[in-house]
C-alpha cells in the first residue's frame, strides 16, 4: 500500500500535540514533523502495518537522529593534551555554577585532577557560592576580587593548571542574556583569552520556546561545542533537549537531575525518546 498524506494526517497531529506539550519548541516541532511527513508520503507500508505505528516509528528515528549520540567527557579529557580547558556559558539562573561543581566532582571521581576558575566576578554572592561548592567537592578554585576582570581569572586558572600538571580547567561565567551586546562581547573576550577546548552551553530542561533563540544566539556569538541541560528532575519530559539539539546541532553531554553533586547523568537519547513517545 502506498502511504498517502491523508492517512498519516491524524497520527501526525496527535504527535504534534505530544511534542508541544512536552516542551519541544514550535518551529522545531514543525520542522521535525514536516521531515517525517516528507519521508513517509509515497513510501510503501505492509497491509497489516497501521499508519499510526508507521508514523511513530518514523518520528522515533527522526528524534534519535536529532538528539545525537551524547558526549563522552572522560574519553575526551583522556585523549587530549593537558590541561583541557572548558568554558561554561548560558543565560541567568540556568544552573551553570552548580553544574561546574558537578562536572568537577564527576571528573575527580573518575581520576582526573581539576581546577575551577571563578569567572563570575559580577553577581552578588557568586564568589562565595562557588567557593563553598569547590570546598565541598574538594577542588581548588581560582578567584579574584568582586568586580574584577573575569578574563584575568580564566587566564590565571589556565596558568595555574599548566604549572601544576592539572588535567582539566572548568571555567564558570556569569549568567547573561544573548541580547546584551556588551555582555556577549565580554564572554567572547573571555573565550579568546582562555582559548577553551570546549565551550559548554548550559540551559534548563524546563525552558520553552526561548531555548531555541538563546541556543542559536550563543552558538553564533560565542560558539558551542556541547550542551548540558539542567533541572531535568522537574518532571520535564526532555522536549527542550530536542529543541536545543535541533537548533545547535551539537551533542548533549549531561542532564542535570538535581541539586547534589552526583545529580548528573551522561546523556542517552533513547531515554528521552522513550519518555516522549512511550
Amino acid at each position: 500500500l502506498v502511504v498517502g498524506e491523508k492517512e498519516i494526517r491524524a497520527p501526525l497531529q496527535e504527535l504534534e500535540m505530544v511534542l508541544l506539550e512536552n516542551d519541544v519548541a514550535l518551529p522545531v516541532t514543525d520542522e521535525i514533523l514536516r521531515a517525517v511527513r516528507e519521508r513517509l508520503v509515497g513510501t510503501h507500508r505492509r497491509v497489516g502495518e497501521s499508519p499510526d505505528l508507521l508514523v511513530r516509528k518514523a518520528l522515533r528515528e527522526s528524534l534519535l537522529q536529532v538528539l545525537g549520540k551524547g558526549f563522552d567527557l572522560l574519553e575526551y579529557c583522556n585523549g587530549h593534551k593537558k590541561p583541557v580547558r572548558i568554558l561554561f556559558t548560558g543565560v541567568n539562573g540556568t544552573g551553570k555554577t552548580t553544574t561546574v561543581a558537578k562536572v568537577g566532582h564527576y571528573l575527580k571521581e573518575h581520576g582526573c585532577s581539576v581546577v575551577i576558575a571563578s569567572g563570575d566576578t559580577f553577581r552578588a554572592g557568586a564568589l562565595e557560592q562557588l567557593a563553598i561548592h569547590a570546598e565541598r567537592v574538594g577542588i581548588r578554585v581560582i578567584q579574584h576580587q568582586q568586580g574584577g576582570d573575569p578574563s584575568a581569572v580564566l587566564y590565571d586558572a589556565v596558568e595555574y593548571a599548566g604549572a601544576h600538571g592539572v588535567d582539566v580547567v572548568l571555567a564558570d561565567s556569569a549568567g547573561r542574556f544573548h541580547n546584551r551586546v556588551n555582555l556577549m562581547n565580554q564572554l567572547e573576550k573571555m573565550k579568546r583569552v582562555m582559548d577553551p577546548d570546549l565551550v559548554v552551553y548550559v540551559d534548563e530542561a524546563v525552558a520553552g520556546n526561548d531555548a531555541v533563540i538563546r541556543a542559536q544566539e550563543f552558538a553564533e556569538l560565542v560558539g558551542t561545542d556541547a550542551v548540558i541541560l539542567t533541572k531535568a528532575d522537574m518532571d520535564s519530559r526532555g522536549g527542550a533537549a530536542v529543541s536545543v539539539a535541533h537548533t545547535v546541532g551539537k551533542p548533549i553531554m549531561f542532564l542535570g537531575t538535581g541539586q547534589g553533586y552526583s545529580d548528573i547523568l551522561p546523556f542517552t537519547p533513547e531515554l528521552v525518546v522513550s519518555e516522549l513517545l512511550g
Partner: protein
Amino acid sequence: HLGASLKDALKKLAGKTVVDRAAVEELVRDLQRALLGADVNVRLVKGLSEAIRTRSVDEQPPKGMSVREHVLRIVYQELIRLMGSTTDVSLQHQRILLAGLQGSGKTTTTAKLARYFQRKGMKVAVICADTFRPGALDQLSTLCQQIGVTCYGEPGKEDAVAIVKKGLAKLSGTEVVIIDTQGRHALEKTLIDEIIQINTVSKADHRWLVIDAALGQQASEQARRFHEAIDIDGVIITKMDGTAKGGGALSAVSETRSGIVFIGAGETIEDLERFDPDSFISRLLG
C-alpha cells in the same frame, strides 16, 4: 499592536458583512501558533480558540462595528481574560512570601521589591529563609546593603521555619517584610512541606510565585502544586529583558486564579515594573 501574521489574518475579514467561518478559522490558527510559540499552555490555547470561534459566530457585531473590528475585539477580550485579574499592591503593613522554582529570580526579586516599597516611603526589611543554597545569605544581604535595607538571616543554621519565626519577631516593627525562600519544584515533597510550614508560621499577607519568563509547558503543573500548597495570590514574571515572551506565566495565572503583580526586567535592583496587560499582549503576539 498585533504581529504581522495576525494582521494578515485579520485583513481577510476586512470588508465582510457576515462572519466568514473559514476566515475566523484561519485567524484562530495564526493566533494559536503565535501563542504556542510564546509558551502559552496547549490547553489554554485550545480553550481560547474555542471561545473565539464560538463568540465570533454567535455574537452579533454591535451597531456600527465592522465584522473585522468585532472579531478583533473578541480576540483582545479573550486575551485580556488570560491575563488574570488586576492585582493591587497595597501600601500597608504586610508580609510577603516569595516562592518558585530553582533559579527563577526570587532572591533578586526580593531585593527589588524591598526597593519598590522603600521608594514608596515605607519601612521594609527582608528575611533570608534559604538555608540550602551556598552563598544565599551573602547574595541577599549584599543586594540589601546596596539600598540600606535590613536583611535578617542566620548563617550556618538549617531550620528555615525557625529563622522565619525569629526574623518576624525581631522585625515586628517593620511595615513591609519580604521573605526569600530556596528554590523548589513540585516533586520535592520535603520542600513543599517546608514552604507550607513557612507560610503557616509567617501568616503571610501575600504569597507570590516568582516565575521565569522562559518557563515552558511545565509552568502549569508547577504553579498548580505551589497553589495547592500555599494558595498563591500573585505572580511575578522575571527576566522579561531577555527574549522570552512569558506565555508560561499565563498558565501560572490561570492555575492560581490570580494575576501578574510585577515584571522583572533586568539584573539590577531598579529593574522592577508594574504589570501592563497591553504591552504584555503585544509582546506575546509580536
